[in-house]
């Protein structure tokens, strides 16, 4: 014994070590809302040499067949779930249906981030951002991240709560089979606003709010998903990119190239979703950035120094020459009156051109609309899309590359673009 610095553990000491192990916080699962009741098996001692046999593919250095601490924890996390059939395939990720190994009735969505050919710089920004914020934000109206693990080929797998009822976009577009009213809109808007408030209260900008990022849980709860473009509030003076938010939902300050902005950018998107819920069509479906600005000028008003001091200093400020004065609430009543006068008041405030004057998420929650009749529908009673399709759609939403404008990608884009031609033809 004197010759060696090592002595073997007596077995009981090893046991003790394992117990200690369980008390060590970081050895436990970082995810509190595990659907499974599987006790963490991380107490498993490391197995140096176990399984080292049999594989002699490379003579030297021999492949490290054993797992270290890290790899072991990863295996444990991975083993908690069983990956099922593929729900959808996209450029950014594949989405699989999965379930908890200990309780197969607990369904999850496993989002497997693809290794991207065109991004040569390691872990892709969208994956990093998405994980960063989903790890921190726990709220009933924000999709919850249940676990993360890597598969051996170093693909990231995000285990997300399974949201089987599609997304808001489906409900909006299915004019023939889904009908809903002001009370339903109020319920959905309430959930969306609470999610956005929570993000902003935690100093997070979502930067990609749109109906197909609003997924619907089995109980009707709306969940904000896709944090692939999110970022924390910047310090004053720090520049941010203006190239965020899917075009139709992008506020004028970003279209004008502002590099300093606030939660007001998300609020504009919320307003666009609100309008879309009412008219059951995209409110401002611009084909290009120029077109987008033109639509804003026509339907809301032309941003000028009078209604937005300083706007002309923004780098990409250009507006159509025929200046449209900012429309008042009355102008909206005809098209959006279904949500009542208070509802329209809220809508107008979300779409104030000058971001400094735009309503905040907190002010939105304090608005009178929520307390006027009709009361918001209880989430269980909200209209939903029955039958297939929802699941496929939700999977399509999860796997889409964040920030890529949906209308540039899929069949929906083509369809909507045609629609747009009618509208644009007026010009």
């Amino acid at each position: 014994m004197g010759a060696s610095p090592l002595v073997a553990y007596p077995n009981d000491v090893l046991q003790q070590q394992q117990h200690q192990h369980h008390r060590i916080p970081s050895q436990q699962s970082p995810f509190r809302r595990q659907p499974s009741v599987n006790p963490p098996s991380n107490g498993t001692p490391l197995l140096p040499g176990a399984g080292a046999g049999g594989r002699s593919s490379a003579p030297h250095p021999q492949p490290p067949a054993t797992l270290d601490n890290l790899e072991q924890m990863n295996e444990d996390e991975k083993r908690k779930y069983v990956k099922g059939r593929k729900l959808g395939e996209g450029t950014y990720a594949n989405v699989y249906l999965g379930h908890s190994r200990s309780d197969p009735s607990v369904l999850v969505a496993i989002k497997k981030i693809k290794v991207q050919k065109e991004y040569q710089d390691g872990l892709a920004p969208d994956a990093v951002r998405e994980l960063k914020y989903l790890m921190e934000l726990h709220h009933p109206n924000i999709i919850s991240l249940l676990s993360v693990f890597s598969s051996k080929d170093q693909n990231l797998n995000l285990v997300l709560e399974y949201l089987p009822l599609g997304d808001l976009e489906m409900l909006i577009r299915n004019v023939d089979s889904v009908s809903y009213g002001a009370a339903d809109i109020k319920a959905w808007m309430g959930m969306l606003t609470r999610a956005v408030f929570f993000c902003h209260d935690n100093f997070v900008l979502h930067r990609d709010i749109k109906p197909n990022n609003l997924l619907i849980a089995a109980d009707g709860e709306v969940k904000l998903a896709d944090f692939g473009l999110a970022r924390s509030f910047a310090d004053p003076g720090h520049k941010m990119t203006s190239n965020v938010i899917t075009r139709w939902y992008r506020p004028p300050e970003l279209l004008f190239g502002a590099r300093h902005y606030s939660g007001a950018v998300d609020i504009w998107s919320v307003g666009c979703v609100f309008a879309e819920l009412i008219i059951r069509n995209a409110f401002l479906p611009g084909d290009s950035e120029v077109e987008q600005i033109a639509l804003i000028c026509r339907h809301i008003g032309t941003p000028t120094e009078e209604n937005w001091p300083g706007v002309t200093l923004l780098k990409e400020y250009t507006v159509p020459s025929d200046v449209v004065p900012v429309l008042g609430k009355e102008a909206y009543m005809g098209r959006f009156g279904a949500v009542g006068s208070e509802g329209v008041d809220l809508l107008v405030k979300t779409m104030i051109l000058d971001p400094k004057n735009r309503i905040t998420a907190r002010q939105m929650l304090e608005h009178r609309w929520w307390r006027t009749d009709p009361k918001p529908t209880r989430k269980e009673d909200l209209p939903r899309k029955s039958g297939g399709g929802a699941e496929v759609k939700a999977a399509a939403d999860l796997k889409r590359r964040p920030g890529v404008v949906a209308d540039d990608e899929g069949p929906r884009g083509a369809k909507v673009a045609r629609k747009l031609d009618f509208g644009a033809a007026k010009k």
Partner: protein
Amino acid sequence: MATEDVRYRESSQFRLWSFSHSQLAAMRENTNAKAVASISERLSSLGATVPPSSIPMDISAPTSTANTPDPEGGGGTPRLPEFLSPADEATMVTFYTAELMRAGAHAEFSDEIIATAATLFRRFYVTNSIMTYPPQEMLVVALFFGCKAEGAFPRITDFLKTFGRERPEEILAGEFLLFRGIRFSIDVKHPFRALRGAVMELRSLGDIEETRIEAAERRAKDILRFSPLITDAYFHYTPSQIMMAALSLADRSLAERLIQATFHHVNVPEISGTNSGADTPNPTTTNTKETNKSEDNKAFIIGSYVRDKVLGTIESCRDMLSKELPERKEHWANRAVYKAQVVPLKKKLNKCHDPDRWNLVELQKVRREQALSSTKKLDGSEDESAALKDDGAVFGSEAKRRKVSGNKKLEDPFGGPL
């Protein structure tokens, strides 16, 4: 609406990466012991099979006497190197954290990027040993990932140019490892903004000289950029506690003034924690929010009991930071210190590091090959039985497992032999 405290407790920084002093020490000892055990095992098995004349590996019979003259006489674990102790590892982590910060400053990264990188680096080495993964590489990886964590996504080639390096694969191979090692928690909360807030509050008091405030801010900021990052402060204290400790080191009476201004309410003797009567507002229950007890609750929070607790915490954080004030930067960059403290450990490390994991590029390659072959083996199917089969192959059978852990050589938890 959640208070700031409640919100902080939701953060991954608190949930996953905040520990008591004894917890942290236990984790590090555990990490060290495991690394020693696994590297010993590995080195022994390599030592038994690598002699020049031996035939490449017959692992199914590791105790085979075919080519080894006398395994029994060799004493079972011959020629094992001297391993790093937990204290050695701590010194190395500290040294490399200093190196990381130097590199970050050289590259002119923002305070946040450097601070995040340093924090992630130290978190990684709580559950991973310096002997397992190479710190020199991991510090560059941490800087690269720190950029990403803070929302900057540099091109790897540009990033490497700054450090005069050329092989992107070295960084990229380590990136995923780091990511996993930090349990995917990317968000690090820093005390920099808290300091700005404190300075504004001091200004609003109206009777403090501006030059004094500015001097205190400068010094406190310098401290925040170094001291909490190279010590364990982030593991034990919240950003605001760290900020107050730094401010206190910069100008103690200014810090005390802030505390005074916050805890101005002093007459709450009857609810000083010992009394748990029915009418005592308990700040941890959820239903106190809108009751008329909220006044009492407020009195409790800004009363002397909490104030003294806060003062005590700030004081202990101050002690920790005072051991590594910014002047110590020179200490860690000093050649003599390097020679006396770091070089001996590096020499040890050269002999006792994990032979399988030291080369990150090679490790990644091996892992990828394993993934590929296991996918082939499973024929693409991902159902439960196949997965279990796979796990069996990785872990070995239960019986084998026991046997191995029974024979395992581990470092004595009560210290080395006398």
